[in-house]
């Protein structure tokens, strides 16, 4: 089968239209919103702050804690019951691993940096949107960072490598979904997952294309951060 035209009419390597804003939640120490197509992620950072329960404290370093949550009305179809799931637990872990390499939390022993991500509306690519928003929120909170973190889902639909899959592409029977997070300056990969099936050649193509796309996301992040600090 040949995938000749994307369901929503985009070019195969074209990202959905993006929006980013930093400082959207005044009560938080840092916050950001990132939207790609119909997927919207809000991220708020609180901390470094005291960590309870105490046994979780690490005297060598502060820790990063992620809390990814889909709002109950944000899913395709029925209401999502609030509270954690196996899926959200795993996502918290992979987002933590995606962000940690750029953070220096050694300065804040025994503390926690809490990142809360909330999604009011989703159309696939939520963990990537969460990472993009969280990276901006961490920068807004003034946490020491070596780099930003950009993320996008690459994938395969039939015979084509595509970027930034929406719900219909993501749930397409003959394909693969590959969320990737990239550190834009070093080019290193900090998130890589996949479900579906793909050849090694196409996998390489997908990751290479995701890396190029992340440059565009990086520009959007930088612009949003600049706009935030220009208005102060």
């Amino acid at each position, binding site marked *: 089968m040949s995938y000749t035209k994307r369901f929503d009419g985009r070019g195969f390597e074209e990202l959905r239209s993006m929006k980013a804003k930093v400082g959207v*939640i*005044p*009560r*938080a120490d840092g*916050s950001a919103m990132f939207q790609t197509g*119909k997927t*919207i992620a*809000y*991220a*708020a950072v*609180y901390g470094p*702050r005291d960590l309870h329960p105490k046994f979780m404290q690490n005297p060598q370093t502060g820790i990063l804690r992620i*809390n990814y*949550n889909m*709002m*109950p*009305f*944000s*899913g*395709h*179809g*029925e*209401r999502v019951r*609030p*509270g*954690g799931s196996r899926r959200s637990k795993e996502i918290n872990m992979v987002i933590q691993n995606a962000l940690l390499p750029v953070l220096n939390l050694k300065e804040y022993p025994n503390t926690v940096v*809490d990142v*809360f*991500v*909330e999604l*009011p*509306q*989703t*159309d696939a690519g939520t963990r990537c949107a969460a990472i993009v928003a969280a990276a901006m929120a961490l920068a807004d909170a003034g946490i020491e960072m070596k780099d930003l973190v950009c993320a996008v889902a690459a994938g395969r639909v039939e015979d084509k490598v595509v970027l930034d899959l929406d719900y219909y592409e993501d749930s397409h029977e003959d394909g693969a979904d590959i969320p990737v997070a990239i550190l834009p300056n070093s080019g290193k990969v900090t998130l890589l997952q996949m479900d579906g099936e793909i050849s090694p050649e196409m996998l390489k193509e997908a990751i290479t294309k995701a890396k190029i796309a992340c440059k565009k996301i990086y520009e959007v992040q930088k612009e949003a951060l600049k706009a935030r600090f220009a208005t102060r």
Partner: protein
Amino acid sequence: MQEQKAHLLKALSKNTRYDGRKALEYRQITVEYGISGSAEGSARVRMGGTEVIAGVKIETGTPYSDTPDQGNLMVNAELLPLSNPRYESGPPGEKATELARVVDRGIRESKCIDVKKLVIKSGEHVWSINIDICSINDEGNLQDASMLAAIAALKDARLPKLTDKFEADYDAEKTKEKLPLARTPVEVTVIKIGDQFLVDPLVDEEDLIEARLTVAITEKGTICALQKGGELPLSVEDIEKMVSIAQKLAPSLRNTLG
């Protein structure tokens, strides 16, 4: 705390507050409809710095055995840890539960939704209306903002398409059919600190509350739910005064719904 209370009471005696408002003045309110396409209805309410979003999910279900000719309504509130450093992840605590239940009563008891019109097949299939309220930024008075957001989301809602098996078809576009809304209740929470009354408290003012009364009011001026909170008791005169304050302010809140 005593010092802060004395300070606020002194300001209130001159009819002013930390942010320059009068005691019985709300912050600026904006209502935005249709902020989540995944929901059947949604809205965002900003009350000064406070931001709340509400989403309505409409599903098909079976009616409760004691109300075979009524649709189902559920209200839930999440005090998201993203919105306030004091909130923690986990199942809803006392505050979130009270918030949701007081919104629920305001909607249910006002007969705002004509639940009889939510019946698809008597005793078997009905529409279930699930309202979820999420705090985005809590700078005080989540109660009144949440009620407004819930009502706005209900007004924004459109029924999903029904399959021949009496299930909602979420792949199809929503129908143009609105929910059967008969009333527009709003909630005004009046605060008592010392011998002073105020509305729309900031978080710092909420910390000083001695007693509060949430009054749900329909457009006819009837009262459809009450909730007293706070540690100190109220006199009958206090209650009369607080209800009349709420009744005076309710129309301006309702007007923000457009």
